[in-house]
Every structure is written in C-alpha cells, then in structure tokens.
C-alpha cells in the first residue's frame, strides 16, 4: 500500500543533502511552505540552490533560509527585498534572475520531459544578452554575469533558448492532501506549487488538512499524487501576506 504520510518533519527532511537544488512554491507568502523552510533551517542545511519566485519576506520561508546564510544560489523573478539585495551585493549569494513566466515554464518543462524551449520573452534584454550581474565579490565588484542565451527567429520574432529547470527537491504547500499525495489548493495559493512539484525528483508537501483517499473528487485534484513523494500535516497555521498596500518586496 502506498502511504506518503509522514509525521516527523525533521526526520523527513534530513535526507536532503547540503548543496541540493530545491524549488519552493508560493507567491510571496501566499501558498508558501513555511514549516518545511523552517525545518531546513533547524536541520542546519546549507549551500542550497533555491528556486522560487520571490526571495521571501525576511525572516520567513525562503527569506529565513537566505538570511541564515543557507542559500548559495537563488533562481527567481522577484528577489526584491533589502536583505537579499545586501546578501547579493556582498557576494554571499549568486543570482539567476528570470522572467516570471519563463521561471514557471522552465519548471513545467522539466516535469514534462522538455529539455529546452524558445520564447520571445526577454529577447533583446539584459537578461538574455548576459549583461546582468550573477555574482559579486565581497567588495561589490561583479565577478560573474548571466550566461548569454541562444537566439533564433521564429515567425519574424527573435526568441531566446531557455533550458528546463530541473531540481533535486521541491517544497510545496496545499490546502488538502491524501496519503497518495493527491493535492488541492485553495484560491490563489496554488501559484508556483504545481510547477515546483513537477520539476523535482522528490517533492515534500505540507498540507493544511490531510483527508481520506476519495475525499478530493478526481476532477478536483490540482496536483496528482504521482508528483508527490511525502506528505506532512502543517503545524505552521495559515500564513498570509503581510504586505501593506503600496509596499514592494
């Protein structure tokens, strides 16, 4: 019998080696697996390559991982918070800045067996020509730039080659999940969670509620259990965005 339900979060995540690549779901804190990020910190994991849309609100979620110096490289579209900015400019973390739709599609492609694809998004910009910093030294000098991307013209439009973004692990959060790993998300908390799960060899799912098999109707499963290897009940509560109107991070 398949039973993916786990009860000890530290024991579950201890299998993640230092240096792993890890996709983390969520858009800001909406739908972000805070308990799983906290567990990685508590386990002392380090040298991680984190793939997520945002670099988090410090000191929560991905933001806590970054602030504690556990992130070697960040791949994402909006690491726009001050603490991350300082870590990047002081040479503590490498950055691969990616347009948001390209990030989602690169993860989806990894899960769908597509090694690479062309897209017009980003063509002709610094993110495609490699004219954007990827790493600074401790004195604030750029020591590495983004790699320039291959360009081909399709239908008269220049398009850039984007490679699938495969990761070792994914941390995702769902509203409901069963012992098979079938998961359903509530409202806007779905966001990057399904793509992150698809991109990973092994997906850990933090569930707000664990339900019996069959409780989620087959056509209401947003993420089929085949993409999920471990399910654990969330103890972190329901976390929302603390962003005030007009704030930006």
């Amino acid at each position, binding site marked *: 019998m398949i039973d993916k339900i786990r009860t000890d979060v530290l024991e579950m995540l201890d299998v993640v080696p230092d240096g792993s690549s890890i996709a983390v779901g969520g*858009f*800001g*804190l*909406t*739908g972000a697996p805070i308990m799983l990020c906290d567990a990685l910190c508590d386990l002392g994991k380090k040298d991680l390559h984190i793939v997520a*849309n945002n670099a988090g609100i410090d000191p929560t979620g991905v933001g806590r991982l970054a602030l504690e110096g556990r992130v070697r490289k960040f791949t994402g*579209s*909006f*690491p*726009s*918070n*001050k603490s*991350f*900015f300082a870590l*990047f400019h002081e040479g503590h973390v490498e*950055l691969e*800045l*990616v*347009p*948001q*739709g*390209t*990030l*989602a*599609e690169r*993860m*989806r492609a990894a899960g769908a067996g597509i090694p690479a694809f062309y*897209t*017009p*998004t*980003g*063509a*002709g*910009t*610094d*993110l495609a020509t490699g*004219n*954007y910093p990827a790493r600074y030294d401790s004195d604030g000098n750029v020591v590495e730039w983004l790699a320039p991307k291959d360009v081909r013209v399709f239908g008269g439009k220049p398009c850039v080659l984007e490679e699938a973004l495969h990761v070792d692990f994914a941390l995702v959060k769902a509203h409901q999940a069963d012992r098979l790993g079938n998961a359903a*998300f*509530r*409202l*806007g*908390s*779905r*966001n*990057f*969670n*399904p*793509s992150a799960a698809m991109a990973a060899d092994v997906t850990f799912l933090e569930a707000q509620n664990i339900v019996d098999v069959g409780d989620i109707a087959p056509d209401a499963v*947003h993420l089929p259990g085949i993409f999920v290897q471990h399910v654990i009940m969330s103890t972190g509560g*329901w976390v*929302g*965005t603390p*962003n*005030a*109107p*007009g*704030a*930006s*991070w």
Partner: protein
Amino acid sequence: MSEIGTEIGWSREALAARAAQDVPDGSYVNLGIGIPMMIPSRIPADREVWFHTENGILGLGGVPAPDEIDLDVTNAGKEYATVVPGASIFDSSLSFAIVRGGHLDIAVLGGMEATPSGDLANWTAPGRTPGVGGAMDLVSGAKQVWVVMDHTDRRGRSKLMRRCTLPLTGARCVDRIYTALGVFRPAGSHFDCLELAPGVSEAVVREMTDAEVAFDLAPAEEPS
C-alpha cells in the same frame, strides 16, 4: 507624479480615467503596479472588463474590506485582493500561458522610459533591488501594450526618449502611451500625439519631450 504633471494636464486620477475610457467592453486586461491599478474603478459602468493577475487569477476584484480579507487571495503586488463572481484560478504556468500565448487583449503597465520605436524600460534602474517579475512576459505576450506614466521623471527629465538609457523590458512592444500631457503612439521615428490633455499646448509637449512629436492627429486644443 512629477511636480510638472500635477500642475498641468491630467491628474493621476484623470489619467487613469482617460486610459479606462479606451478599454473596450469584453476585454481581458492585466494591470501593472502604480497608476494602472487605478483603472478598474474608472471603467465605464456599461462595460464588462476582466482583470488578470500573474499569480493566477482571472477575475480580480477590488481591495477587500478589513473583515473580508482572505489570506489566499492576493494580487501580483502581494496585496490582499478579491475575486469577482465568474473568476477562475489556476497555477503560475497556466497563468503565464495566458500571458505568453497572446490571450490577453491589453497589458497596461507603468513606465520609466519609452521610445518612438516602441521600446520600453520599466523594470530596473541603478541602485534598485533586483526584480523583473512578469514584465518581460507581458510586453512580449499581450496583444496590446499600453504604458501609463508621468510625462517626466522626478528631476523633470522626459520619459518619452529618443532612446532608452535604462535596461529594456522589451523592444518594439509599446502600442500607446498615456501621460499627464496627452495620448501618444510610437510611430517609428517619432511619437504621434493622438490627443492633448485639457490646457496643454503643442509647445509645452515639445518642450517637455526628448523625442520628436507629430501633432497631425491630435484634436484641436480648444474644441469649438
């Protein structure tokens, strides 16, 4: 808003209302942060317009009352939001299939610089924290890209430039620009001025604009 912009032409509110006038009934629209976010409440009441947000909602509503806040409903600016009846919700990959697959009618974005060839810079400037979000996806994917912005920056420098000095969000992507001074269309070597804001003269636009502007299409300054 620039000092100049508050003195002549449209206010921020009037500018949002002016852009809202041009959004056709039945449109699917994505809005950037800033003045574009002021458009929904100014859409004429007899039009049905659907708002898309990058984080996976088609049918975004307004700001919730304090007792209506749902932690799972936020907009692309990560502020609490609402959904309207008839809305649909999906994951980021499908959300960007909507954006990149050419299904959105209009993306209305803020801007830092735009040129007569339709180039747009609006995602970064020196000293800014890194963050591109969905801006590059939107300018490459939406059927039309409108820019709503101040005519000049805080130092009074024109944002309608011959060439962008800031890193591009996209090349040859802008269809229309709304500023406090009027409505403009990139026309290759120059901007066509389609309309002047009330009380704004051609001379003022010329003086405050780095790029060339043609006025053949603009209605008379004082309608008879």
